[in-house]
């Protein structure tokens, strides 16, 4: 089985994602489009944290943000192992509906020698109306 480092060198973020059990637990996918890395949370009944409005659990929205951040750091630093998260702030702007895909994209705000600061935006049908934004620090080794 290829190491994470080999998968990273091959730029196979989908394969890195599939290596992580939690990704299939909540249905997270990683890929690239013309704007860069894109992380997708697929509709999944068991992700629901609010049955009244059929919203995704806030913790899973946080996980989507963390995952998009991890993948962005992997892309920008090509580390040997998965980067360690230091802290994460999630701001919830609108309900994240469980019956629709949620998309997340990370922006590397600052990449230092030891610390990466990443901002992540999450949206559903309309990219102009984000459902959540987050920022996180990662330890870069």
């Amino acid at each position, binding site marked *: 089985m290829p190491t994470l480092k080999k998968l990273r060198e091959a730029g196979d973020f989908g394969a890195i994602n599939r*290596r992580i059990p939690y990704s299939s637990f909540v249905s997270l996918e990683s890929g690239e489009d013309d704007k860069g890395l894109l992380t997708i949370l697929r509709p999944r009944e068991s992700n629901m944290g609010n049955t009244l409005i059929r919203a995704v659990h806030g913790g899973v929205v946080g996980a989507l943000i963390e*995952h998009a951040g991890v993948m962005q750091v992997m892309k920008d630093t090509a580390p040997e192992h998965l980067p360690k998260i230091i802290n994460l702030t*999630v701001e919830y702007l609108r309900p994240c509906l469980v019956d629709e895909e949620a998309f997340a994209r990370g922006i590397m705000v600052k990449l230092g020698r030891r610390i990466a600061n990443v901002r992540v935006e999450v949206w559903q049908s309309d990219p102009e109306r984000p459902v959540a934004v987050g920022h996180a620090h990662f330890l870069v080794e």
Partner: protein
Amino acid sequence: MPQGDVPEKLKPLLDVLVTLPHFRELGVTAERVERGFAIVRSDYDERTIGNPETGVIHGGVVTTVMDSVCGLVAFTVLEEPKPIATLDLRIDYLKPATPGKALRGQAEVYKETRNVTFVRGVAYHDDPDDPIANCTATFMIGSVGFKVGGEGGA
């Protein structure tokens, strides 16, 4: 579920909790619930591993446990049933969780105002003084936010 220790008024909260699909999927259960204070627990589950090289659970599990217990404790201080919405949640990851051990989240309300409830908490295995993560969260009370379709911001 510690039904015996839970004030009568708060029992309906726990009845709702067990119906939520992601709580069930993650096996989140309440260990202690009182006004302004709660502890929940989630057992180790290999399906939630975030680092396949170490077996450490994904940070998303910590986030989910903390969002759950912070939201739960925000509900315990309401005088009458109202919807609440998480405004934000911040987590500091202090050390990795130990593979194989149950994760607990403990939270307390440290300030109540008419519109916003302020909550802080920790994630840990056995000792809240040896935390895996520290967390603060704020909740909007009586939010019109969770309305689907149309302008719904909290």
